[in-house]
């Protein structure tokens, strides 16, 4: 793996580990309010300072990371399973099923960027759980498109025809022979998609449509801190740094995984 990939993996392990160990690493509860300690700059007592309510930013950063990273994981779980299943069915059966599912994909892809997630939030209402669902649904078309294309390629191979002629059922051909052979590009999409999902989730929380106060979440913390930039830059900057490093780690790792699984780049390396 390229050095960038290792740096990305280290960043991810560090931030993931911090989020998992939040109860042990936090100096206090992320919700404890101490009005007397408001706007304390970063120092030995409060490593990342305190916010306008005197809450410890380090503790909120750790617990906020749990929610932000969770948005990425759950959203990708929703989109990868649903999108892959639909794409595989469309590619394998073809005909009207394929036309209908491809049309749905094209319609969903007409809503660029964060727009589809916004539409779903408008329907479901605000809240962090709805953000996970919205971001997950918004990413389904990418998985559908990729897995459909991969199935169209793989189903023409001789071993699929051999499996069919030996009497294998559709389900067996799909899950035993086709799915394992299209997992590589899907793995790259899951990795890179997770970064996008974290960004979208944090953006929705930043806009006030995701995590609600006083719950800590990186996007929401940054949004709350921007009103106090001149009095306490640390309130907004640390959560922003958290999102940036998490997404950077995922992108570096995803790019490296993509190169590793791409036979063309392996050939270039071997030359």
């Amino acid at each position, binding site marked *: 793996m390229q050095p960038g990939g290792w740096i990305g993996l280290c960043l991810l392990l560090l931030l993931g580990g911090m989020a998992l160990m939040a109860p042990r690493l936090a100096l206090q509860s992320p919700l404890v309010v101490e009005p007397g300690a408001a706007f304390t700059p970063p120092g030995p007592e409060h490593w990342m300072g305190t916010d306008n309510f005197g809450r410890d930013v380090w503790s909120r950063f750790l617990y906020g990371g749990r929610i932000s990273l969770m948005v990425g994981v759950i959203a990708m779980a929703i989109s990868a399973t649903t999108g892959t299943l639909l794409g595989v069915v469309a590619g394998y059966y073809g005909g009207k099923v394929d036309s209908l599912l491809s*049309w749905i994909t094209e319609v969903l892809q007409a809503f*660029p960027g964060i727009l589809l997630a916004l539409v779903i939030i*408008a329907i479901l209402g605000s809240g962090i759980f709805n953000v996970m669902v919205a971001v997950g649904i918004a990413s389904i078309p990418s998985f559908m498109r990729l897995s459909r294309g991969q199935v169209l390629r793989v189903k023409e191979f001789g071993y699929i025809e051999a499996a069919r002629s030996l009497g294998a059922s559709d389900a067996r051909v799909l899950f035993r022979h086709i799915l394992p052979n299209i997992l590589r590009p899907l793995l790259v999409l899951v990795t890179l998609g997770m970064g996008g999902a974290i960004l979208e989730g944090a953006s929705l929380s930043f806009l006030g449509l995701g995590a609600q106060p006083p719950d800590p979440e990186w996007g929401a913390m940054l949004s709350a801190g*921007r009103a106090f930039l001149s009095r306490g830059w640390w309130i907004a900057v640390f959560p922003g740094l958290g999102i940036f490093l998490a997404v*950077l780690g995922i992108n570096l790792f995803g790019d490296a995984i993509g190169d590793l699984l791409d036979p063309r780049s392996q050939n270039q390396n071997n030359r």
Partner: protein
Amino acid sequence: MWQYLGRRLLVSLAVLLGVSALTFSMLHLVPGDPVHAMLGRQAVTAERAEELRAQLGLNDPLPVQYANYLTKALRGDLGRSIRSNRPVASMIAEQLPSTLMLAAASMIVAIAIGVPLGSLAALQQNRWTDTLIMIGAISGVSIPSFFLALLLILLFSVSLGWLPGTASTNDLRGLVLPALTLGLGEAAVITRLVRASLLEVLHQPYLWTARAKGADEKRVLWEHAFRNALIPVVTMLSLQLVYLLAGSVVIENIFARQGIGRLAVTAIQNRDFPLVQGVVLLIATTYVAINTLTDLSYAVLDPRIRLK
């Protein structure tokens, strides 16, 4: 050729129908009674609820409602905002110039930074310049726009006091930071795209032929490599313009700038469905239109596409 054009237009029409059906069904997919969802917890009289139901045509059968929605939308009538009772189309028309100005300015920033850096990275492949540019590009792709905005505000507004942190529509100085924020993120995408595209072209045999025929390196690069490498980039740029429109949702909110992005978020917070539907329909339709035009122009330029 005409057959391809006709088929492509039919596909776009089908997608547009789907887009309109999805925006129409937003109101009906809301859990519970849509009228109560829109009016929220405020004390609602039965008369007010009935009045809104009639205004939105919710008493008609679903197919009739959709047909009415579609006919009105085609005439430019997107209904009335339930909060301000103003026509949605005119509310969007008021905000659109500000968003378009932001998108155009961001695109200029993105091209001015992305194309030269991407080209330089490709020409200096695997050297420290390339590594440095690619580190910058991957950081640009990874940084949330609202965090970048905040850092720029901290630097140029809070510390140096050079530029305003919030913007009004008519103030050009107020456009600088929002355009820089949106444009820098986009520049990172363009840098990666230009580098990849140029690298692919640089390894093509026709460049060796040009060199073998005695063309100097400048001519090989400018006349043969760049021209061909930029074709896919220019195509992508048209689609990126719509992504900039969608990106304005966050940027307009952080800089308190007028525009359709801010209008959309306020509408969602107020559960003002006709307004949300209007903005979403506009952006999605623009996306489909640009996508279709791009495909059609590709078919005109490249015979292989229409023959497929």
